């Protein structure tokens, strides 16, 4: 285990100054998520344009550094991508957190991959994995218009 890998500079920075921590005006999709472990809560807002491209994404919530950073990095990275691309990226990210050594998505550029890989330190902290995945599950839920709130206890990662 290695704290330095978990709390990398970029994580701490995003945790402290999360991007897109606000509420998108005129959002057309949203979902709530909840991590009973740390009491973290997140609410993700999406605005898709007519071509199903993410015109804007934002989130509200509070939580540990890992979960805030993860939401911040995620929203930053997802903005401007298309819905199908996003779905694929979420899957790739969750796969990486669960078991894959790296990210494989064609929809991610190299520097985006590097950024996301900063979250991979969490793999060594099984109790913290769900902090990193909360906002991602919530994003999926928003995209799919699932009505029920995401609860990370029900998720494998």
């Amino acid at each position: 285990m290695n704290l330095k890998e978990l709390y990398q500079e970029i994580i701490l920075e995003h945790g402290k100054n999360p991007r897109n921590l606000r509420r998108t005006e005129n959002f057309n999709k949203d979902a709530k998520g909840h991590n009973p472990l740390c009491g973290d809560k997140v609410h993700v807002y999406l605005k898709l344009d007519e071509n199903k491209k993410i015109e804007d994404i934002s989130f509200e919530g509070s939580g540990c550094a890992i979960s805030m950073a993860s939401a911040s990095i995620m929203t930053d990275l997802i903005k401007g991508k298309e819905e199908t691309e996003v779905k694929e990226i979420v899957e790739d990210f969750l796969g990486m957190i669960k078991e894959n050594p790296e990210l494989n998505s064609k929809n991610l550029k190299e520097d985006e991959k590097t950024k996301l890989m900063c979250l991979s330190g969490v793999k060594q902290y099984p109790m913290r994995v769900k902090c990193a995945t909360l906002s991602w599950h919530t994003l999926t839920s928003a995209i799919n218009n699932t009505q029920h709130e995401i609860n990370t206890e029900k998720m494998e990662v």
Partner: protein
Amino acid sequence: MNIDNIKEQFPIFNNKINNKDLVYLDSANSSQKPIDVIDRMYDFYTKEFSNVGRSVHYLAVAATNLYENTRISVQKYINAKDKNEIVFTKGATEAINLVANTYGQKNLKEGDEVLLTELEHHSNYVPWHYLRKLKGVKIEFAEINNVGEVTLESIEKKITSKTKMIAITHLSNVTGAILPIKEITQLAHSKGIPVLVDGCQGAPHLKLDMQDLDCDFYAISCHKMYGPTGLGILYAKKKWLEELPPYQGGGGMIERVKKNDISYGDLPNKYEAGTMATAQVIAFDESIKFLNKIGIENITKHEKDLMDYGQEILRKNNSVKLIGNPKKKGAVLSFTIEGIHPHDIATILDEDGVAIRAGHHCCQILHDKLGLNATARASLGIYNTREDIDKLNLAINKCKKIFSLK
């Protein structure tokens, strides 16, 4: 037994945990076990094992005597009037469920009020919530003051003519506040209201005297009291155990069983259905012996000293904020650090072998009130030392460094 080298009695501290010396500050969650307790279970299983009860063979008779001996030890330890006022349960949670269920069945009806406090653990709220759902009972919460206490006045304020039960913690597992149980009981009894005390955090740290407290029910969690897991105790005044209906049904708790009716056995059998946690009960006798050897006064003193030291150190530490500052406070140090989430704190402390807990500690009502999602909590046991507090403080500083705090 000398409290200064008491760690020697706890084998867990002989090993490196994850390559570090263990600084165990999670005793409010569950305490470590002294070697005598662990050995007793080993010996019982290897040399003496039998189920207790009505068998007449040698091992069964011996086990039954040992089992009942623990009941007597507990009776003496908490100064109960009668050994049959001691009921063994699976935990404090079951003990409280037992009371809520049986008292609720018999004595509560729609509109009746149960008075809790904002300090209560979920285990002393959810069972009463069931009665709210099932019977339309109302639940009131006596409020905490700004130092995290619940005072006699705060209780008094919420008592109405409809109050039919007061169920309160002895010692808060978050703020450490020790409630004035004796005074609350006097007040409650003057109005004919019974009092249940959630003694989970009181029992390991305070002198227990049921005659002095005079509460009607007292719930204990043995695993927090240097005893085995899977065991709890309900103390209840005899008249309640006689008057209330049984809880779980099964072998051992009946008198006569016919196809059309059943009559129940006497105390304490009536409340001990099925095979009990035999080995755990027998081993718990060693926990009591252990506590007696040190002396509860010495324990309380040792822990108070440590807590004072801990409060002093943490108060001096910039950005650390202690949660609650009750005048009478038990061995719990809950805190937050401005700018670091408690779960990040716990993860970073763990790296140095400092085991604390982060979260709402099963007290969401309290955390809502405090406007916090979570707190970090260092809780003390008899094995803790000033050195442990110093290590906690150092680890907190490391935390702050990682997060670039001063």
